């Protein structure tokens, strides 16, 4: 793996938005790499910047977005941010494709499914109408849509949510992209359908050898699906590791908190959940110190004033950004000190946090 160049290299990516309230720093210095055929899961709450991150990679940001200099997004040897408009048009779809959370809003309600799938095949690959239709049929079979011939002539509203998401996957795969970005692909779906879609993505990926970025707010979704996981909070990557390493040695208190907030079916009913108290910070304000400190049970004075940087933990590929990593003697001391005081250095009332 090391000898070959990664498919995607993101370095120090920043994306700001010019809003009436001020500059909103949605993504604030994120770096990661992705190898060919690999899956990385990006996990974080709403507003952590994970969707903006992938939109920046694809270069499909809104007009008020500012990407300060110093960032590098290198895909297959090319910087995606330097593509001209016409180059970009053939780049999307054939190199990188994206599927979104809500299949109803990402499909065109007044066009038949077949037209929507063949559109990109005809545009990018210059296929004839018949060739494109044949390919569309093949794709419909590949993504597991029953009665594909009939479905091609239907409109999105005639399909169920799961079938619509299969159609968006078929569209994304139409031109054999090297990278598939799935932005919360199953959040709007039932658990049973979620399982079907995730299984489908996994098998397609194996078959086609694509790389994938899987974005979700649920650590459970990526646990069995991604080789590596990056946890984002308030525009920063706070921990990244191989999936098994991350689950066995959670270092960042935010990762731990996300994990603990998942209701586990093997727990007794009425087991109290460890919710994360409070909310992510307002990203328009100037943020000092660790961004998670106001919600963190371990926060110390240092966390309020100094900002921790990502550093290697000693385990291969495991990086995290916390002064008091979970499981270390320092964190145990920090927690004990906070529990004695009843309040953290950042002002979080531990007793109140436990009941909220």
């Amino acid at each position: 793996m090391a000898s070959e160049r990664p498919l995607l290299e993101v370095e120090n990516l920043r994306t700001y938005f010019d809003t009436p309230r001020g500059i909103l720093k949605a993504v604030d210095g994120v770096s990661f790499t992705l190898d060919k055929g690999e899956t990385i899961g990006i996990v974080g709450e709403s507003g952590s910047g994970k969707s903006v991150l992938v939109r920046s990679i694809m270069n499909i940001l809104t007009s008020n977005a500012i990407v300060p200099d110093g960032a590098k997004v290198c895909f297959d040897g090319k910087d995606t941010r330097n593509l001209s408009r016409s180059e970009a048009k053939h780049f999307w779809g054939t190199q990188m494709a994206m599927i979104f959370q809500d299949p109803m809003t990402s499909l065109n309600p007044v066009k038949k499914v077949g037209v929507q799938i063949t559109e990109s095949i005809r545009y990018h690959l210059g296929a004839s109408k018949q060739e494109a239709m044949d390919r569309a049929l093949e794709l419909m079979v590949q993504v597991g849509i029953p009665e594909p011939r009939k479905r091609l002539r239907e409109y999105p509203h005639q399909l169920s949510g799961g079938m619509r998401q299969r159609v968006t996957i078929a569209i994304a795969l139409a031109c054999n992209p090297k990278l598939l970005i799935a932005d919360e692909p199953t959040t709007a779906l039932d658990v049973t359908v979620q399982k079907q879609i995730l299984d489908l993505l996994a098998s397609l990926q194996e078959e086609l050898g694509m790389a994938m970025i899987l974005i979700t707010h649920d650590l459970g979704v990526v646990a069995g699906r991604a080789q590596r996981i990056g946890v984002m909070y308030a525009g920063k990557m706070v921990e990244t590791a191989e999936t098994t390493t991350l689950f066995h040695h959670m270092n960042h208190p935010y990762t731990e908190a996300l994990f603990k907030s998942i209701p586990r079916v093997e727990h007794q009913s009425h087991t109290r959940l460890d919710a994360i108290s409070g909310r992510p910070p307002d990203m328009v304000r100037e943020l000092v110190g660790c961004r998670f400190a106001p919600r963190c049970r371990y926060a110390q004075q240092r966390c309020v004033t100094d900002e921790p940087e990502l550093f290697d933990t000693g385990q291969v590929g495991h990086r995290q950004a916390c002064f008091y990593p979970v499981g270390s003697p320092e964190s145990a001391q920090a927690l004990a000190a906070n529990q004695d005081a009843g309040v953290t250095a950042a002002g979080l009332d531990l007793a109140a946090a436990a009941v909220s």
Partner: protein
Amino acid sequence: MAGTGKVHMRGDEALVTVEDLVMEFPTGRRAVVHAVSGVSFDILEGETLGLVGESGCGKSTTGRAMMQLPPPTSGSVRFDGVEMTDLSKEELRRTRTRMQMIFQDPISSLNPRRKVKDIVAEGLSIWHNDAGDTAAQKVNEVLDAVGLDPEVVSDRRPHQFSGGQCQRICIARALVLDPKVIICDEPVSALDVSVQAQILNLLEDMKARYGLTLVFIAHDLAVVKNVSDRVVVMYLGKVCEVAGPDALYAHPAHPYTDVLLASIPEPDPDHPVSDRQIAGELPSPINPPSGCRFRTRCEKAQDRCSTEEPELREIAPDHYAACHFPNEVPVTVGG
């Protein structure tokens, strides 16, 4: 799947009793959507009943039919000894103050143009209880109870809040008339896991503080299991299985429950992703399968399943399933 049958009913002690509930919607060309086809269950006072199933299984329709929104095609809903389906419009209006609802999308269920204090106080003003300080006090009390600072939030509008906070406002609005029953229709499906945990904890706290009886509707069995005292698994308008949450998880009897459990993503990379997946799509409720409605997607289906509809029967103490070939449930004493 699913069957009819009432062996799981607990008689007169129940606060709410739903019997043979049928909900059908005409769709033109003489076709009828069979949304709910003969569902029965009861809820004891202070209990949380979980209704779980996929989209289209009729769980939301059942919840709304309990409120007579709209009234069911046939069947009975008894609430506190009163037959809801027989009530006049005015009586129904009065009864509904004691039964409230919370919906899936907290942002769209709040009027964006009104202030939080007016949204929460609306129930009081409709019932002319809004005179003076007591109403304001009540609004402040419920806002405080759901973890919002009344001083800060009262004059704000819904767009100034996150999804989780909007759901807290919805819960405050449901609480303000001191209801006995709250029907929660997918209250956490639109929320992040971290916020979901906050709202689930809050519902448990409110239940204890105000002595509520809850109906909790969701598609995720892990979520339902966490808050419920009894779970009803539904599929295509019928009941598959009724049991306590821990028994249901430990020994799912119905093949559909099995699949629901296997679909929950396990936050553990060492736990291999289950290779069980539900086959195919939900059949059309306009023309549901004969016999057991789950048979078209069931691994165990036999000829008998297409001809004979399984009835709910007791397969272990307080554990009921509607299946001709249920999984074996070991009988444990006190379990």
